[in-house]
């Protein structure tokens, strides 16, 4: 019997296909000053950026790898090809001009179709370079800028980028932020002018195709006073048996009374080291809404951070993490309350299965000045079998009395009664368990636009296949 009609039935090879990269330009493996200079030359960096890269390299060499979190032993930076430029003349604004194999990749991932259907603009990065960028005319007319960050750096927004580049996430933050500062390549720049409310989302898609490569894209988004933006980020890579590294950096600046929703469904291949740093600086009355689904990668360190600098600034974080076989996903969030009447709301779910390890890690800091602030953290973990592991490590540091902080964590399993009930209504055990897990993850799926929610549920069903016996 064919299963074609079932929504659940998706093919993992959708993400696992890959193309030969024999024509591409690569720098030598390992990381030296010469390589960083070579990248800088290749990019025609302004002088300040060249100096910035070299300074970051120095910090990288002086900084230790973290002594907490999942082991990074399998990651040898000398074997990661830092910069892989696809064999194409950089940026295109029409899919027709993108080389066949790359276009084919994004076609299979459904990016052009999604753009036609429901997006205000799309950017697509293939290995280290952005290969496609487009924005709808009416959106551009409102003054919204959505372009690749490298050409923006050399254009009229050069000063604005210089003013914000790695200011939220300085290279001193941790070793992989320093690495990013030294070798970053590609990524998007978005500017939404004051008062502009974008009803439909912008999207960027990152695809790492080359073997043993690192992806270090930089995303810089500035949402000016009173503006609204929903930005969606997707990532994937085919599976090779050598480790790939993703050390991207996302910096979000949210102006007074502005709102940014930043959604990510991450499905890197299961040999990926995902050491990504994301941070939002929120001004008075502004709001950051993170929606984050982590399904892929071998090892993840991912903690989007919200710095609430203005009075009444708010942060919401809704996340789900699914760690399957061979995965150690250390995810969570950080919030710093620096001003009065700020609030944060954190709601996460973690699922561990087939020997996967998921860790929820968070920190909520309430500074002395943050009178009247509120924070609520709720994290739930689900153990799907008895060979997996799930840890919860939430930290709170409160230095002001006039606050209201609540925290709750729960861990448990799928109840036999629920499975039995669903089976009594005709579901197979596998279907029943998949349904329960999808329901458990609905905090995130109900925050996503429909097509992404469907994709996420498909991913869960796929992961739950063969989970019986």
């Amino acid at each position, binding site marked *: 019997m064919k299963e074609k009609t079932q929504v659940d039935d998706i093919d993992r090879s959708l993400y696992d296909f890959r193309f030969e990269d024999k024509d591409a330009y690569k720098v030598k493996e390992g990381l030296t000053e010469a390589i960083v200079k070579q990248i800088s030359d290749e990019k025609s960096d302004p002088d300040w950026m060249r100096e910035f890269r070299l300074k970051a390299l120095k910090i990288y060499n002086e900084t230790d790898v973290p002594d907490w979190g999942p082991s990074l032993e399998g990651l040898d930076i000398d074997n990661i090809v830092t910069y892989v430029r696809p064999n194409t003349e950089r940026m295109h604004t029409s899919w027709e001009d993108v080389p066949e194999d790359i276009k084919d990749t994004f076609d299979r991932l459904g990016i052009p179709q999604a753009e036609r259907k429901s997006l205000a603009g799309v950017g697509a990065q293939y290995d280290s370079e952005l290969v496609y960028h487009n924005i709808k005319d009416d959106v551009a007319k409102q003054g919204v800028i959505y372009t690749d960050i490298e050409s923006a750096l050399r254009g009229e927004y050069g000063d604005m980028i210089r003013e914000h580049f790695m200011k939220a996430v300085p290279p001193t933050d941790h070793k992989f932020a320093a690495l990013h500062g030294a070798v970053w390549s590609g990524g998007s720049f978005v500017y939404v002018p004051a008062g502009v409310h974008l009803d439909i989302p912008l999207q960027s898609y990152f695809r790492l195709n080359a073997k043993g490569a690192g992806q270090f894209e930089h995303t810089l988004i500035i949402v000016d006073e009173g503006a609204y933006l929903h930005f969606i980020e997707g990532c994937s890579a085919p599976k090779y048996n050598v480790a790939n590294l993703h050390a991207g950096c996302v910096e979000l600046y949210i102006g007074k009374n502005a709102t940014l929703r930043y959604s990510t469904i991450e499905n890197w291949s299961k040999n990926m080291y995902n050491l990504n740093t994301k941070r939002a600086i929120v001004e008075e009355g502004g709001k950051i809404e993170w929606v984050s689904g982590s399904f892929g990668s071998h090892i993840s360190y991912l903690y989007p951070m919200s710095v609430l600098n203005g009075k009444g600034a708010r942060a919401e974080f809704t996340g789900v993490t699914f760690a399957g076989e061979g995965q150690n996903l250390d995810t969570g969030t950080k919030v710093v309350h620096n001003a009065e009447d700020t609030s944060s709301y954190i709601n996460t779910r973690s699922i561990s299965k087939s020997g996967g390890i998921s860790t929820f890690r968070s920190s909520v800091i309430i500074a002395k000045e943050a009178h009247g602030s509120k924070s609520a953290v709720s994290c739930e973990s689900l153990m799907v079998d008895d060979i997996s*592991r799930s840890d919860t490590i939430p930290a709170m540091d*409160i230095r002001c009395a006039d606050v209201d*902080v609540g925290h709750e964590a729960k861990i448990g399993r799928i109840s036999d009664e629920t499975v039995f009930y669903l089976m009594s209504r005709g579901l197979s055990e596998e279907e029943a368990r998949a349904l329960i897990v999808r329901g458990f993850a609905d905090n995130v799926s109900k925050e996503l636009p429909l097509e992404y929610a469907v994709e996420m549920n498909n991913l869960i069903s796929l992961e739950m296949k063969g989970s019986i016996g």
Partner: protein
Amino acid sequence: MMDNTKNIHINKLPVRTWNKLKMNEASIELGPKPSQALYKDEIPSGVDRVSGKAIGPMSDIPVNTGLGEEFDAYVTDMGIKSVGYITEDGVEADAPLYISYGGVRHGKEDEPATDDKIGLIDFTVGEKSSLTVIQDIADDDSRGAYTFVLQNKYHIAEGGSLTLIQVNRLGKEVCLCNDIGGYVADGGKFSLIQVILGGGVNYYGSNTGLTGNGSGVSIDVAYSLDGEASLDMNYVVDHRGRNSESNIGVSGVMKGSSKKLFRGTIDFHKGCAGAKGAEIEDVLLIDDTIVNQTIPLILCDEEDVEGSHGATIGRLDEHLLTYMKSRGISEKDAYVLMERAKIDAVAGKIEDDRIKGIIRTCMGDEPEAEV
């Protein structure tokens, strides 16, 4: 003598997190040669005191303690003999074992001792035996700034039960290292009640190994911190036995420039199927100069378990304030009442009137004739 102090790391979090938070561990300077802390004990019938290691059954298993390995090694290096209390199988002690450190003369007449103190105690509770221990942790004739190292180790045999009640009313310049660790066998139960009203720099740690099937632990801590006082805590429960249960409740009030760090870990090891663990923390914050840190861990390597943690930190709940006001109690009075309630809620679990009276006196109650 000062040159010989030893710097050791204590109260380590079982799983590390960001170093920037400074919650992974504490470090402390300890003197080279503390003297044996003097004490008075009142031993109920059915309990024997022995010198040296009392713990037969557990001598071959290393006991993990809350303050941790480095601290345990330091204590062992001191070469001071522990005092052991043993109950035979099937003995239900008719009264609490009462150990007081307060008011015991230490140095010579008219010559108050100021050197550091160390007290090491082992408890062995036999099968189906039950024992309640009360430790009144107060200053002896020592004055000023000194360090008091107290370590309690225990082994609770099948179906046995040990209740350890500790009341800390040390002076404000004293540093207390209060270390606890032990094992609970099948169906055994360990209860720890700690009321913290004194001490300047307090390190509290407890590690409970729930090795037995159906074993359990309950921990209730209440503290009141004011001025420059600090409290650094590390409570770990290792669930190894099937159907083992743990409950940790920590509740306190912070005023002045006091500092508190609560580490609480429920660790479900592989094989502890059916285990349940719950942690609750409740902190009432009074002044803006406090530093309140909390890190409650749930580590889980077993599917069939239930773990939970909840924390409420900050000012008084609005509904509670409204209710209080509806009975004519102003916001200010409500705070005074609730500060007191945090301590009383834990003290209420103690059944001994003498130590309850001591707590009341520490809280500034006038002695009132019993009705």
